[in-house]
């Protein structure tokens, strides 16, 4: 074993790379199964028909999503094909408007606007926007905000009007509701449970 022979290190580079790639491939197969819609970490799209919560689990020592009883969305219980179509549209809207270049999703994206991982669970909808919009449900308040953000500013950094139509806004709201039910291993921690004393 001559450490000064490049061939030794070349063999090391090739074998290390191959071993790591094989491990990655096995872990990828498992991860994709766990994170598919209906997998153990990612709920089926019909979760939008249910109440969603976020509670600390002492056995896992982290916050976990909790799927509760029936909670129709926009006054409707969505079938699996309908929910899937709604999610597809929601994701296309999110991409077409480049939401990820102002907001973060699971902390990925841009940091100018709030993280949207648990946006569906944010108390601000009930506390601020439902009174502001006069909407009867949270989802209607969210739709109104997305369509006309310039009417409901809350601080000096505002969301621009991106000409989101009503069907598009509904699809995005449904997407955010589904996304809030994904098990993200506890991110973000303590969502909605703390109050800031400043």
């Amino acid at each position, binding site marked *: 074993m001559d450490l000064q022979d*490049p061939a030794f*290190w070349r063999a*090391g*580079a090739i074998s290390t*790379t191959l071993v*790591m*790639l094989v491990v*990655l491939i096995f*872990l990828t197969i*498992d*991860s*994709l199964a*766990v*994170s598919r*819609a209906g997998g153990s*970490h*990612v709920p089926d799209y019909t979760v939008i028909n249910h109440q969603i919560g976020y509670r600390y689990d002492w056995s896992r020592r982290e916050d976990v999503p909790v799927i509760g009883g029936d909670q129709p969305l926009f006054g409707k219980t969505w079938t699996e094909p309908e929910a*899937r179509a709604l999610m*597809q549209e929601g*994701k*296309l*809207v*999110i*991409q*077409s*408007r*480049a939401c990820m*270049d*102002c907001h973060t*999703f*699971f*902390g*990925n*994206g*841009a*940091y*100018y606007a*709030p993280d949207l991982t648990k946006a569906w669970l944010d*108390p*601000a909808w009930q506390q601020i926007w439902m009174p502001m919009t006069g909407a009867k449900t949270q989802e209607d308040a969210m739709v109104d905000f997305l369509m006309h953000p310039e009417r409901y500013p809350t*601080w000096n*950094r*505002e969301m*621009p*009007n*991106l000409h989101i139509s009503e069907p598009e806004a509904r699809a995005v709201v449904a997407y955010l509701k589904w*996304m809030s039910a*994904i*098990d*993200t*291993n*506890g*991110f*973000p*921690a*303590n*969502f909605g449970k*703390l109050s*800031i004393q*400043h």
Partner: protein
Amino acid sequence: MYRSQKLALRYFTASATLFGVMVIAGLLSATYYVFPHFLFGIFNFNMSKILHIDTLIIWLLMGFFGSVYWFLPKELNRELEGIRLGEIMFWVFCAAVAVVAAIFIFVQYGPGDETSLWLINQGRKYVEAPRWAAIGIVLIVLTFAYNVIGTAIKARRMTGILWVLILDLIPLTLLYLDAFPAQTNISHDLYWWWWLVHMWVEATWEVLIGCIMAWALMELLGTSRRIVETWLYIEVMLVLGTGILGLGHHYFWIGTPRYWLSIGGFFSALEPLPLLGMVVHAIYDAGTHHMQTTNKPAFYWLLAEAFGNFIGAGVWGFMMTLPQINLYSHGTQWTVSHGHFAFWGAYACGVIAVFYLAAQRSRGLNMVDNRSWKWGFGLLNFGMVGMVGALLIAGIAQAFFERAEGGSTLQAFVVAQSNPWFEMGMYSRLAFGFIFAAGYTVLMYDLLTVGKRAPAVAAQSVAA
């Protein structure tokens, strides 16, 4: 000069130009944080950010292409195969970038359907360019790969550096295919997106810049091929050995299994170790040459590469990579601080070093050393360190107030963004951004004029 090297100079010119566009877009993005109503509704933050991060990727990629087009003909002592096609694709590349930039500036977005993704904006970070442009990038990368592989085949010669480069081009090209899909399931979308982003900037690009640095060291310091190849293999082994499963540090919070916290955290925490070796190596090379060289700026930018990589990627990364910390630092300005420093150290400094090497050779200069390069070097690095420091303070404040204290709600976000430490960080970042921009201007002035300003010196024709 080989035709390929003339093409390299064109790539360097385009690269340096886009570097400037990136700086302007960066200043604009930073301005929104302190003047949020600036151009509001006309040109919003997301579009400015898209220009900033996409030109980052393109200027570095063009710098890499140019570097390979510059060094490869000398490596194989022949003109590159398919060089005419390569020359045509350069103009296609520039045209595509210009059209996409115009679309981002003047059209910006479309309705939520596949047509918008094909024509206007795909909205996935770093790969927002519409699909037609992504197809163009694939063709450009394939042409580049053909230029490299075809030449090696025609020359019937391979070197260690070339083997590593060619093998690296395969995943580099294939990974870009993730620029196309629009997956509904965001967990799957992000899973594959990170294959592209991480395996580009923390794997295949590391290997690519390693090859370029190997050639640069041979040219600048006369280091023997055996030594640079040995180091290249060691570097590939350590960087890919830690970086492939270090990909897992992006899989902590996206809906993937919990074992990624251990696996990703562990391998990611190992990533600084090869960078420490590179810094020691850089000291060795600097010392054996007594800091003397015929191209001072190239030499110092190579040193900046080693140090910047270690500190920006290694130190800053290690601060935030352990999952218990990352739970709070994730998705804050702390990440921005790390990202700027890491990209700067790992890639930008290296590409600038090659700019200077090419300027020296193409103008037949015996020696490159003047005052301008020092000002450019100083202002750019001082500006970068200042920006990164400001972002670090803002990021720590954000992690503290928004995430740890506030629980990451909208209210917590607003409180943190309004925190005096955070706001001071944003103002400081903008100020240091202007210093960085000044450094860029000096760098461009120096690169454009080096060798043309000084009185005529007896310049022996240097074998280009």
